[in-house]
């Protein structure tokens, strides 16, 4: 049982790192958001695994919260992305560098 949790945690960690890599590598804002979602879900997975270790429902509760939060985030994110596309005619994040210094 313990080993299965470890494997799940490993998976979660892997997903998390993948997410990070995605955020860093991708230039398209939508893909960046997607990668962040992957990271959030990796955390959710970790919670589920942790909950199962202690045989508590808390981990799953937390996962539901994370989902809800991610949904809210994505909705606002997409709204912002629409605006960005509207203004810059591009979804390249590197174009958004007006403020610096």
């Amino acid at each position, binding site marked *: 049982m313990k080993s299965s949790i470890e494997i799940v945690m490993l998976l979660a960690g892997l997903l998390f790192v993948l997410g990070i890599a995605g955020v860093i590598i991708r230039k398209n804002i939508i893909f*960046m958001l997607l990668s962040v979602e992957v990271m959030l879900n990796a955390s959710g997975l970790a919670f589920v695994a942790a909950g199962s270790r202690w045989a508590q429902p808390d981990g799953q509760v937390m996962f539901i919260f994370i989902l809800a939060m991610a949904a809210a985030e994505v909705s606002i994110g997409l709204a912002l992305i629409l605006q960005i596309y509207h203004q810059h005619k591009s979804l390249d994040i590197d174009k958004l560098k007006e403020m610096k210094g």
Partner: protein
Amino acid sequence: MNNLLWLIPVLPFAGFLILALAGKHLSRVWVALIGAGSVSLSAIIVPIIGIGFLSHPPATGNYSQTLWTWMQVGDFNPKITLFLDALSLVFVFVITFIGALIHIYSAGFMASDKDYSRFFACMNLFVFSMLLLVLADNLLLLYLGWEGVGLCSYLLIGFWYENPVNGYAARKAFIITRIGDTAMAIGLFVIFYQFGTLAIPDILTKAPVLWHQGASIATITALLLLAGGVGKSAQLPLQTWLPDAMAGPSPVSALIHAATMVTAGVYLISRMHIIFQLSPIAQMIVAVIGAATLFIAGFSALTQYDIKRVLAYSTISQIGYMFLALGVGAWAAAIFHFMIHAFFKALLFLAAGAVIEALHHEHNIFKMGGLKNKLPVIFWTFLIGSASLAALPLISAGFYSKDQILWYAWAAEGGNPLLWFIGLLGAFITAVYTTRMMILVFWGEAKTEIGHRPGKLMTVPLIVLAFFSLFAGFIELPHNFGHFRLFSDLLQQVLPETILKAGMNTELQFQILALLSTLGGIYLAYVFYYKQPQRIEKLKQSRFVMNLYLFWFSGWGFDKLYNTLIVKPIVFMANVNKNDVVDKLYQGVTFITIRLYQSLSFTQSGSLRWYIMGLVIGAIIILSMQIML
């Protein structure tokens, strides 16, 4: 009489205050009256007190009057106390008497100057400071007077301030004497920690008790005090300021740079004679300095063409004699020479001033000449002064004082033949340059037209001084020649009697040698400058003689030496460091801060992906720290 003592310095000071505060509102007559009057009043009070002092000698041997306690810090409590004994009486007399005469002379001499009141204010302040110097009961008060006369000397050398050369000369005088003063100040520290007091009488009584003969501390102290005296009295190696100081008006040169201030060193050494006596080495150094100075300055005087510079070098040289006398232990002789020198040198300067003024401010003796008949009063008084300077035997006062010194330079306990010989050589050179000056100025053909003739205000002081230059010598006659010792008897109360070496009683042959050297000098100058002037031209063709001439003319190159060794490096350093190298340090800090800002600001690139990278790197650092440590 004792309680009148304070009036002596205060009168000139009052004169100074009035002139300084209200000078520009007063008419010239009033200025002269206040300026000369205040000093003259002092000069009148001095004999009154002096007669009282001599006729009813106080039991303590001195008058002392405490005005107030200057300050009291722990054990250090110098008082503003005036102190009069025989030694200071001589000085006070000379200062006030000659001072008054010079003030009167100045009233005529400076009559056309626009800064009339400033001149008298400074002169009064000078007399006040000088009186304070010689009347001071403690070394700190003496130091006050000491620096005060330095200030006045500075103010008066640079009196005609529009010309930067004068200002330069004034600063040179002040700063070089300041070097000596600084050493003297250190001497005061040593004295205070040795004796716990700066009061002169206490020091003099404690010194022989606390120090043994020849103690190194005595030598150190004596040398430090000597440094002060050397600076002020323009002796080797601090003599270079005095010839330049001639930039001041002639009365100033007469009063400050001939009669009084420059002899402050003589006063200091004789005042602190016990300390010098405790250190034979120091006393020897005094004598050597005196001898060397008189020698060097004599040759320089020989080559000058500016009449006042001739006199200035001769002053240095004559003070060298005084130092020589002090050094060999002929205390009274030194003071005697001081007094006589004050008379004739003041006379010479004043007369020179009159000549210069008459010749439209011409200083060059080669452009003078033939004044013998045109300015008879000046001629005769100048002649008397010169005779005294050259120590013309028997009739001039200078003979009696200088001869005594020469004799003691051999015969006194500290004397030796070498010192005597240098002195004798000096006397010879003195006679040469004095005669040269006389001949060039008064004989020969006139090279410059006479303008302004001196008035009564100027001639009367000259005549009075001439009188003293002739006859003042008779109060002290050699023992083989009347043995009249009025002066040294007076000083005996304060200064120790000169101790002669064993088996010295043939003063006569020394006198004859001195006489011969003077006459020889006069004759030599007569030959070269009057009879056969072409010989000089011939001499000048020799490269060696010319170089020697220039070397002497420049005062043996001391100015150049000091300039290259001390002045230039310091000025160079100061100018290089004008912007303060320390500030570079802080500018560096600022620079680094700004560079850091710039590079950090670069990280704020505005790129989201870059920010994420930053975040990730931060996370990695933190996590690795967590795991590693």
